[in-house]
């Protein structure tokens, strides 16, 4: 079992991370799924995004989310890369990949990890837009998405 967490300002390379996981879990894993979160441009409203973290603590909290996902879904491998710092539309913000024996667990693990990253990971997000900078807080949708795993 491998869990790899990376939080940093460098660009994320989803293809390389996915390929490394696939090699690591071969040939026991029958399923490798991934999710790539890309900064989108909502009709020109946000020109850039700035993500801040609390060094050490953020990584440890993401590790806890990953550990819970690994236990819950019986994963063979899990990779979580999160970008911080300033990024612009089209750039990758987050990458999650999960490997398991069968497909359902790998699909659900990516979904689970993303729901917790969006609503519980210690990250603070600021949008740079035409009207200046705005701090973003989780939406009701983010909270209800997470609630699906707690009912």
């Amino acid at each position, binding site marked *: 079992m491998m869990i790899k967490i990376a939080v940093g300002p460098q660009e994320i390379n989803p293809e390389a991370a996915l390929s490394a996981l696939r090699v690591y879990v071969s040939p026991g894993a029958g399923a490798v799924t991934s999710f790539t979160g890309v900064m989108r441009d909502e009709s020109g409203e946000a020109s850039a995004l700035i993500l801040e973290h*609390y060094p050490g603590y953020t990584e440890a909290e993401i590790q806890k989310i990953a550990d819970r996902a690994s236990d819950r879904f019986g994963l063979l491998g899990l990779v979580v890369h999160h970008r911080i710092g300033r990024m612009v539309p089209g750039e990758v913000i987050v990458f999650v990949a999960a490997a398991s024996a069968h497909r359902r667990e790998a699909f659900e693990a990516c979904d689970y990890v993303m729901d917790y*990253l969006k609503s*519980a990971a*210690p990250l*603070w*997000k600021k949008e740079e837009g035409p009207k200046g900078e705005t*701090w973003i*807080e989780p939406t009701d949708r983010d909270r209800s998405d997470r609630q699906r795993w707690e009912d």
Partner: protein
Amino acid sequence: MKIVFLGRLAEQFGASHTIEPTESWTVAEAISACAGDQADMLTAPGISYVLDHEIVRIGTPLADAKELAFLPPVSGG
């Protein structure tokens, strides 16, 4: 002791400070020392206190911890 402010709180209070707590201090006394008449920003709903990387309450003693952080509600990734 190092005090760390994250997110929008860093813009308000500065990213980090040093305070010299006495033995009896809890998070509440640290808030008074750091924020003065803006203490209500640090006692507002949604603000978390993290003492040496563990979530604590406002009444938790600082003891000999090295770092206290004030976290606004997280934004998620």
